[in-house]
């Protein structure tokens, strides 16, 4: 059962009072918080995988082999690279949410006026969005700031990938007590 997320009610009322044409979409601060959480998750995953590989290397006594250290080192680096390469695209294409976005109740959807019903993101589109992150960040983060001057709060990477961020409808009722 999906309903409107309860925490958005207050925001909707406030935006109505403002009298501006601001649709009910998440603002910059929610998105920034979600991004920070995602970075923390990725760092944790990278650190945990590095430790795991090192322990595995120690367990199998790879340091006894001439290239044992090299194997552990290369594997750790590849794993960290994989975490950074796969985390965002896979989470967006599978659920539309990364961990940070899920915690903040946000979701990335496709924003194509020709196909308004299609919200699911393809993997290439997700990679395009990740590339857009770098482009947004490069000119002193101005790409992120474009969201401020846009009613739908779309950033540069949203425009590049043809996406937008919306509030995830609440699916809480089945977990709630009473």
């Amino acid at each position, binding site marked *: 059962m999906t309903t409107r997320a*309860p*925490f958005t009610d207050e*925001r909707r009322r406030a935006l109505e009072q*403002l009298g*501006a044409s*601001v649709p009910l979409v*998440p603002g910059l601060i*929610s998105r920034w918080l979600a991004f920070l959480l995602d970075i923390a998750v990725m760092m944790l995953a990278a650190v945990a995988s590095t430790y795991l590989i090192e322990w595995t290397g120690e367990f199998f006594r790879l340091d006894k082999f001439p290239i044992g250290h090299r194997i552990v080192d290369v594997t750790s680096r590849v794993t960290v690279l994989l975490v950074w390469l796969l985390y965002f695209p896979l989470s967006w294409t599978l659920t539309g949410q990364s961990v940070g976005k899920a*915690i903040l109740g946000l979701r990335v959807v496709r924003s194509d006026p020709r196909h308004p019903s299609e919200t699911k993101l393809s993997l290439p589109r997700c990679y395009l969005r990740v590339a857009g992150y770098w482009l947004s960040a490069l000119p002193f983060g101005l790409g992120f700031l474009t969201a401020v001057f846009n009613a739908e709060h779309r950033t540069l990477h949203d425009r590049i990938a043809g996406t937008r961020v919306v509030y995830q409808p609440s699916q*809480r009722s089945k977990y709630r007590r009473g």
Partner: protein
Amino acid sequence: MISRLRRVGRLKKRVERAAHSIEERSRQVTRRGLQGGLEMTLIALARSPAFYRLVDEVVQYLVHHPDVEALIHQQTSSFAIDAVDELRATAARADTAFDRMVIALRRRVTAK
């Protein structure tokens, strides 16, 4: 008459002092007795295999009891849900404040 009153006063003080002393002593004895009893009980429990069996049984009962499990699960998930809700609500309020600021700024710039 006066000397008799003085004698009675002295006697009263002595009786009061004695009563205090008895009270203090009985308190000490009771405390010592209780401590000793408690220590003895704890030592006896620590040496008793039956006590460990009982603790194990109680723990096993609590761990496997569906009601207890459900209660712990409910409390944990409820706490996490509340924390997430609070974070979302705070972020949404911050978004609104930021939007309000931007709109005011825009209106001011347009007015100029």
